[in-house]
């Protein structure tokens, strides 16, 4: 487990009473959460718990139906396009699938944010990209195409691109998904090293328990769109809540079963007994 930081810090992210919905289906329900500067916050929960939606909302990619989100002191609802773009330049996002452009070399993928957002000399950008590749242990891979990399290498290349602008906040969506435990552990180490060296705030969405307990200062557990618990890894382990214990022990939640509704689903009959066409 990472050492929880002890000195008082400002808030990198403050979410208050956040609600989101897709169509008529509510996804996040009254979610309030604060992430400290320099903290590694891991967001966990089962599929459909709302963890990816929460990250998308914080990134400004999903409009809330209620509540406020402040990132690096800015209320993102009140930001115009230009100010939102300026704020996003202070984020780094490592997407689950890597999201590298297949038509560009690894080096060009990594330099892309610099080309978009800076006027740096080409030579400076190339050196920066090589520095980041060194950091993620992909030295010398800048001229390869993404298709020539393994899954673990793609993840690391995505990290290199995510940190090329030295972001204040790094968002990682399922960084260990699809990786074997050894490669997954190297990604965890990378996150810890980045936080240590660059004092980044890191938000990691994952359902990898080992990874969460290794890197988190605090863990937020989401369940059906609500926050079930926020605490240190030790506090999470000590929780008696059945849903949390189910998550820790990888047990699927016991589904509440309505026998009548179940029978109707199987027979295809409506509540009145009529066949459903």
């Amino acid at each position: 487990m990472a050492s929880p930081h002890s000195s008082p810090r400002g808030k990198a992210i403050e979410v208050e009473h956040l609600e989101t919905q897709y169509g008529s289906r509510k996804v996040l329900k009254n979610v309030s959460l604060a992430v400290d500067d320099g903290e590694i916050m891991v967001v966990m929960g089962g599929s459909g718990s709302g963890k990816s939606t929460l990250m998308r909302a914080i990134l400004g990619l999903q409009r809330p139906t209620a509540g406020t989100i402040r990132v690096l002191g800015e209320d993102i609802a009140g930001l115009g396009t230009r100010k939102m773009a300026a704020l996003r330049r202070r984020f780094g996002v490592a997407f689950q699938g890597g999201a590298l452009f297949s038509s560009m070399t690894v080096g060009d993928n990594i330099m892309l944010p610099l080309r978009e957002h800076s006027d740096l000399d080409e030579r400076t950008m190339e050196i920066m990209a090589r520095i980041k590749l060194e950091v993620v242990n992909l030295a010398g891979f800048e001229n390869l195409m993404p298709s020539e990399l393994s899954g673990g290498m793609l993840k690391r290349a995505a990290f290199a691109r995510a940190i090329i602008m030295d972001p204040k906040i790094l968002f990682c969506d399922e960084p260990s998904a699809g990786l074997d435990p050894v490669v997954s552990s190297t990604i965890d180490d990378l996150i810890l090293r980045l936080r240590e060296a660059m004092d980044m705030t890191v938000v990691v969405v994952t359902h990898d328990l080992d990874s969460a307990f290794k890197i988190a200062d605090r863990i937020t557990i989401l369940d059906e769109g609500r926050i079930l618990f926020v605490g240190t890894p030790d506090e999470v382990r000590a929780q008696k809540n059945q849903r949390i214990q189910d998550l820790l022990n990888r047990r699927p939640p016991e589904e509440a079963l309505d026998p009548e509704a179940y029978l109707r689903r199987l027979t295809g009959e409506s509540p009145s007994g009529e066949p459903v066409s």
Partner: protein
Amino acid sequence: MKYETNDVEGVTVVALEGDVDLESSPVARRLLLDQIARNQRLVVDLSRVGYMDSSGVASLVEALQSARKRGCGFVIAATGDAVLRVIRLARLDRVFTLSATVQDGIAALRKG
């Protein structure tokens, strides 16, 4: 970012001050490369740099390589903890010659 250039005992000391980031690093880069083009032995004083991002570190890397090609000495002096952590992240502490103080850096270049 501000900067100051002084000649001390035949060594050029370039003192950077403030943040060296995406906005200011091109100025630092040009300054260092221009000094090296004049075959100056350089000590880069970072004692008043509070923050340096990767573009600043990359500028130092390019300057070091240019200095080596010309046979000029190049020392980075008085690096603060925050900057040193970024340098160490990429293991560049094994590439740069780092000195604790500007005086140590000048002495190292005069000796070499």
